[in-house]
Structures are given as C-alpha cells and as structure tokens.
C-alpha cells in the first residue's frame, strides 16, 4: 500500500510539471523570434532555389535538418542543402531521388511534404502544420523547371 502511494505521488509529481511549455510570446509559429532572420510570416515567392532556401528551409526545416546529426543525413542549411537534395538518393527509399530534376512526382521530397501514402516515416515538417499548398506547388515548379541552383 505504501509503495502504491509512493508511485502515485511520484506520478503526480511528473504530471505537476506538465504545463511548462512556453507562452510563445514574441515568436512565430515555428518558434523563431519575430524579426530574426528566420522569423515572421511566410509570403508567396517565385520558384527559385534561393527563395525556397530562405522561405522554407531556413524558416522551418533547419530546426531539425541541420548540423552533423541531421535526420537521414539531410542537412538543409544554405551551405549543404542543394548538394544534399538534387540527384541524391533518399535514405528512406533509395529507389527515389530526393529531388529528381524535371520530375516532381518522382521526387521523394514532394512525397514527404505532401504526406503521400507510400512514404517512410511521417509527413514533413514533422509535428508541424503541413506546408501550404501554394508553397508545395512552388517547390514542384522549381523541380519541374530542372531544379536549378538559381
């Protein structure tokens, strides 16, 4: 009985901490400070790699896909993203390229962003709202136009 009480007390102690999440004051929906390089609201952009880097990778993806321990080895910071994406086989599904120039439907990044039924793991960005359809369409267009480093 004493042990069960101890368990209940310790369990209640664990739950006591629940609610320690931040208020989000001064942050955008991705947790980036508003006014910082990565913060603020997204705006429509033209289908160039520079724009995708600034508006998608820098704002959202590099919270996880950065540094030496980036998931699936996919670093999406400006120095590494293009080389890690274009014509590179996916780690999760090596039969598909992450970005297949000219073929958005055969690009694994599109399947991950759209949350297709045949993906491995979760839809990207993980645990966040999916990218808006317009942004995905823009990425599709960039790939369809040859996935240039423009």
């Amino acid at each position, binding site marked *: 009985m004493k042990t069960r009480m101890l368990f209940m007390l310790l369990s209640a102690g664990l*739950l006591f901490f629940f609610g320690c999440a931040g208020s989000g004051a001064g*942050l955008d929906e991705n947790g980036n400070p508003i006014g910082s390089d990565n913060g603020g609201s997204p705006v429509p952009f033209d289908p160039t790699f520079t724009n995708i880097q600034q508006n998608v990778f820098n704002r959202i993806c590099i919270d996880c896909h950065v*540094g030496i321990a980036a998931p699936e080895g996919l670093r999406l910071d400006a*120095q590494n993203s293009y080389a890690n994406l274009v014509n590179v086989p996916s780690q*999760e599904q090596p039969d598909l390229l992450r970005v297949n120039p000219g073929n958005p439907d055969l690009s694994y990044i599109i399947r991950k962003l759209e949350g297709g039924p045949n993906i491995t793991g979760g839809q990207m960005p993980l645990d966040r709202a999916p990218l808006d359809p317009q942004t995905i369409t823009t990425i599709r267009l960039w790939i369809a136009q040859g996935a240039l480093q423009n």
Partner: protein
Amino acid sequence: LKTLLLLTALVYLCATSSIIAEPYLAVREGLKCSACHTNITGGGKRTQMGTGYGAIDLPWKPADLESQKIPHYFSLIKDLLSIGADFRAFNRSTFSDGGSETNTFQTDKSNFYLQADLIRDRITFYLDETIAPGGAQTREIFGMIHNLPGRGWIKAGKFIHPFGLRVEDDRAFIREATGFNFNTPDTGVEIGFQPGPFTLMASITNGTSSIVDNNLSKQFVGTFGYVGDFFRVGTSASYNDAVDANRRVHGGWAGFRIKDFVFLGEADWIWDEELTRDRDQFVTYAEADYEVIDGWNLKVAYEFYDPDRNVDENERDRVITGVESFLTSFVQLQLFYRFNQSIPQNVPQNADELLLRLHIYF
C-alpha cells in the same frame, strides 16, 4: 476534455498498473540489456532467454507452447542460426483545439532479424532489416566478437550509438532531439566491457548517419553506467566534429525499482555550433511504471524540451499515459494518450494523440 482525460488516467493509475518503453523491463528484472538482446547495447533481436521471457514469463495468458510443440526461439543448426522479428501496426487519432482532427491506420516500424553464431559465444554476424513501412532498409548490420576479457566485445559495422536509455519511442524528445534513436544508425566500431555491475562502452563512427563520409572527422560516443539489482545510474556523452559544424551531447540517466514499480529518467544537454547558427538544447524524460498483474502494465511519462535555450518561451512538454498488455505469447497491445503542449501559435504541436498499437514479436 483534457482535464477529464488526465483525471481518468490518474484514476487508472490508482486502480491498475504500468509500462511501455522497453528499458523498464531491464530495470524491473535488474538485468542489463544484453541479457535479452543479441545486440549487447539493447534493442532488436532477442536472445533465447529474451524470447523465453517474452513468450512465457511476460504474457498475461501465455500460450501452451510446449503441448503444441511451438518453439519460442526460432533457430536452425543447433541454434547457430536464428531469426526474430517485430511487427507493429497502429491506429492514431489526433485532437486539436484549433486544427482538424485525424484518424489513421498505419504499419509502424517493423523489423526482421537474423543472427548467425559462426563460433558459438564468440563470433556473431547480426542483421536487423527494417521491412516496413516503405521499402526495406538495413538498420543494423555488424560482426561482433564477444566474451572477451572483462566480458568485453568489439562490434564493427552499422549500428545504433550506445547513448542513454534506449526507449522504444523514437519520438521521445530525448531520442528525437539528441539524434540517438532507431532511425539514426551509423557505421564504425564499438568496444565495450561489462565487468560485474558496471558497463563501459564507446564507439567511433563516421558521424554522418551512414551517409558517405567525405571528411576525416569522426563521431565519438561513450556510456558508463552501474547496473545493480534495484538501481542503475549512468552517463553518456557524444562529440561529433566536422569542418563546418560540431555537436556535443552530454546526458545522465537513472532507473530504479521498488516492488512492482519502476522509475526511469534521463536529462540531456545538446550544443550545436554551425557556421550560420549556434544552438543549445535541453531535454528531459521521466517515466513511472507499475505492473498490476502479470502482463498488464500502466505507465505515465513526462517529457520536456527546450529547443533553443537562448530563446525564451519556446519550450515544449508532454505527458504520455496509458496501459499495455502482453496478452499472450508473442502479442502486445498498447493504448496510450499523449498530451502535447507547445507554443500556442503552433497548432499541430499542441494536438493530443490517442494511439492503439498491436505489436507481434518473437
């Protein structure tokens, strides 16, 4: 509704018992991971003792395997060649105040294992192949020389880093944020010793999540721990350096049991240095488990994550609570509710989840 569910979970706690992540089993039994797993650092294929424990000792109503002439250990050539598997399928519902509610069936991470003991108790070839969802992918493949002095071993190939508590949930902050989880094996060499109650292991790997290594830098991971009958404590550290980035991770973990109760905890500090951005992160995990009757367990866990200690008010936390049962031999059923809290403007990260999962294992 959240409060009601939380209270319901607490009532369950008062009335019944606990469990989920697998390290609690090791703590409950006062054993090291290697007692039940071929991979000495834990996870993956089970040893003969591990399958026996899972098929006969653990279940609520174990099947009468002996009378039906069903083995609990599937092997050939006098146990020199053996196989195993984990299959998981689940139904997941999400509930969000400001977003849409979802419900989906999915096959979860499922793996097939092959072990060949080329020289019994000395040289082992090991394969852990992820077979679902998506295409097949090798999670671990290595050769291992074991039973060296000091109960030592040397492992070479692709394996999961020896860091922290190897909880089964890859989405736990301590596994997701640190990058040490079942999705991030790496290629290199691991050496370890288990003299008496102590465990000491270290690895050197490419540090590139098994992507082609194009530099001279390597990742170093080490763990030192004491594993007693009722109590265990340890520390893990990792250093991964590259030309344009480096990451250090330090952590401590502990576990203890009192009668049918098990408690686990881990805290990790993560330092990233990048050309464009430095970041300090902090994660914690605490879990309490209670076995009410054989094969029925209750669990409550709390997680906290500060994704950037230099940014205020961006923290996340969550509580996971639920019940699981090893209904019969080779079958586990889990029902968990996950209360997620994040900054209010990030609606998906505040969505709660209900998970019902079937797990077949041998």
